[in-house]
């Protein structure tokens, strides 16, 4: 059997693009990496594989812990990690879902073409930047009191609909129709609510951004048609999460679980994986608080999208409905969800599916896929770097068998932020993108541009090629940046 040796960890090749780390020591299941050899060479350069092995120590992990093709080192659990953990005799781990609960991506279609935009890129990027809050301390699209925050946490995008920041169609095109009904605002601390109150409708910073893009390729005409995508069309991609509120929910429960479930923690190789046993009070409380933070993130992206419609109205002097600015789909890539999957021996089990830097990728027919996409599969949005473009995929037929219905979430970082700032100068990156690629970038600081320079990411084309070849997420369309704003 061919093997790949990665600094003391041996991976056995199961078949093309599937590598397995056998179960050993305290691991409760084997671990798998889904990657080409080229991607595996990059993945093995940091602590990704060690963290993947650690994640297989979580009690109740079923089949195997998995690393997606864009995987890289995170904290505790790797970014690009997926674990299906038994919801009856397993556990739930806040650190394996991540601080930025429901960090995710949405794509909005328009009926504009690239030629409609050419010559107005500068005006558009300036208007977007001055109207979409970003960065640290930039406020939000709305500021709300405690009552508003609690309504957002419990009702999700339905709150935005009532407040005039959404239309019915937006809810129909969002994962879970924009609300997790298990959410309980009382399980979210005042500290978390305080942090969220002035951040509703804000991008934040780091790798979060809003990008106006043009569709350059449609690879599957029938699915592209169902998604409403065609070549040369303008779309808007929004990438952000639950802001300080979600970060605080994760922090609060990590500490509570650490103190209450020391016994389980002692079985784990990394304190950041602290987990609450399934059925415990803290497992239930965390799940309900996480669902509330999920709702907050959906509202966050919804408000940014609706504000974007208003900006387009001003710049193009047309109604947003006339420009058919409709939500294609909204996907989460840092999330924990109770889902039923087939596990070892063909048994159906309810699992806490932990996806950290991984996107749900359900195929056609799965009941959770919205009505509009039941026949073609769930849309998956894979943002690339600001110089490389992004992809739209659809849930692949093999995703349920291979990955608990999951695929990659992006290009995946290759270079640290400190190294990126040494190698790139933000203003140079911005000028090069404009002069050589006709991409207009505006950010709160040059350092952010340097840290997010195209060269710090893996090859998104290769990540998507592997996803497509494995049949976990099939390539539908490719987009290329026109305007990009970031914090």
């Amino acid at each position: 059997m061919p093997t790949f040796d990665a600094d003391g960890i041996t991976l056995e090749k199961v078949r093309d693009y599937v590598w397995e780390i056998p179960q050993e020591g305290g691991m409760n299941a084997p671990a798998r990496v889904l990657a080409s050899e080229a991607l595996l060479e990059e993945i093995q350069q940091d602590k990704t594989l060690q963290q993947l092995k650690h994640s297989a120590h979580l009690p109740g992990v079923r089949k195997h812990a998995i690393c997606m093709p864009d995987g890289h080192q995170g904290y505790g659990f790797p970014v690009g990690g997926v674990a299906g953990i038994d919801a009856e005799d397993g556990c739930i781990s806040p650190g394996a879902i991540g601080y930025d609960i429901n960090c995710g991506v949405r794509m909005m279609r328009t009926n504009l073409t690239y030629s409609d935009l050419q010559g107005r890129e500068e005006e558009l990027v300036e208007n977007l930047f001055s109207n979409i809050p970003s960065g640290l301390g930039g406020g939000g699209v709305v500021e709300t009191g405690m009552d508003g925050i609690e309504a957002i946490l419990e009702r999700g995008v339905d709150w935005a609909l009532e407040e005039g920041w959404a239309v019915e169609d937006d809810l129909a095109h969002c994962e879970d129709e924009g609300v997790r009904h298990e959410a309980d605002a009382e399980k979210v601390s005042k500290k978390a609510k305080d942090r969220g109150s002035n951040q509703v409708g804000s991008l934040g910073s780091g790798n979060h951004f809003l990008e106006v893009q043009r569709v350059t390729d449609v690879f599957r005409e029938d699915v592209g048609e169902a998604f409403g995508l065609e070549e040369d069309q303008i779309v808007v991609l929004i990438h952000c999460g639950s802001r300080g509120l979600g970060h605080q929910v994760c922090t609060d429960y990590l500490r509570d679980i650490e103190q209450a479930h020391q016994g389980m923690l002692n079985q784990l190789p990394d304190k950041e994986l602290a987990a609450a046993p399934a059925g415990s009070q803290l497992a239930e409380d965390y799940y309900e608080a996480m669902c509330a933070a999920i709702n907050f993130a959906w509202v966050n992206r919804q408000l940014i999208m609706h504000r974007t419609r208003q900006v387009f109205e001003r710049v193009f002097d047309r109604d947003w409905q006339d420009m058919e600015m409709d939500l294609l789909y909204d996907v989460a890539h840092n999330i924990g969800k109770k889902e039923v999957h087939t596990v070892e021996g063909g048994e159906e089990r309810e699992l806490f599916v932990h996806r950290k830097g991984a996107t749900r990728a359900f195929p056609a027919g799965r009941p959770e896929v919205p009505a509009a996409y039941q026949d073609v599969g769930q849309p998956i949005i894979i943002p690339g770097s600001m110089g490389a473009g992004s992809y739209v995929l659809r849930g692949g037929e093999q995703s349920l068998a291979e990955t608990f219905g999951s695929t990659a979430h992006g290009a995946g970082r290759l270079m640290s932020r400190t190294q990126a700032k040494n190698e790139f100068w933000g203003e140079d990156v911005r000028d090069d993108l404009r002069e050589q690629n006709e991409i207009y970038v505006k950010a709160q600081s040059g350092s952010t541009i340097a840290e997010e320079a195209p060269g710090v990411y893996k090859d998104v084309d290769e990540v998507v090629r592997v996803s497509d070849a494995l049949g976990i997420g099939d390539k539908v369309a490719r987009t290329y940046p026109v305007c990009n704003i970031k914090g």
Partner: protein
Amino acid sequence: MGFDLREHTADVAVEATGETLDAVFGFVADGLAAAMCDEIPDDGERFDLTVRAENREALLFDYLDELIYERDVRGVLPVDHEAAVRDDGDGEWTCEASARGVPLSAVDARDVKAVTYSEMTLEESADGWRAYVVFDV
């Protein structure tokens, strides 16, 4: 003695050394500020904070979490940290600290989302104390 920002693929790590536990707490917090902002101006008022936890490592975690919270609710970048750490006995530790809060409107700063326990080290060394903390960016 002081801090350095260390390489991490996605996030940022701070390594700090100090002659005392008080100093190393303050230096990690200074590293957190440096991870968010390259050039820190002189303005801003000082504010106090007190954190309690069940052990030294948890105290460092909670101290850094509290600074991130204060940043968001006060709208300031906490810098120039001073910390005093004491063991109250019976599994209780206290950190009494202060920082200068530079208004976020006065700086180009980037978000650090949270402190993590991943790879966290807080250990006594021949020269004093050493800490290593990974922050989620």
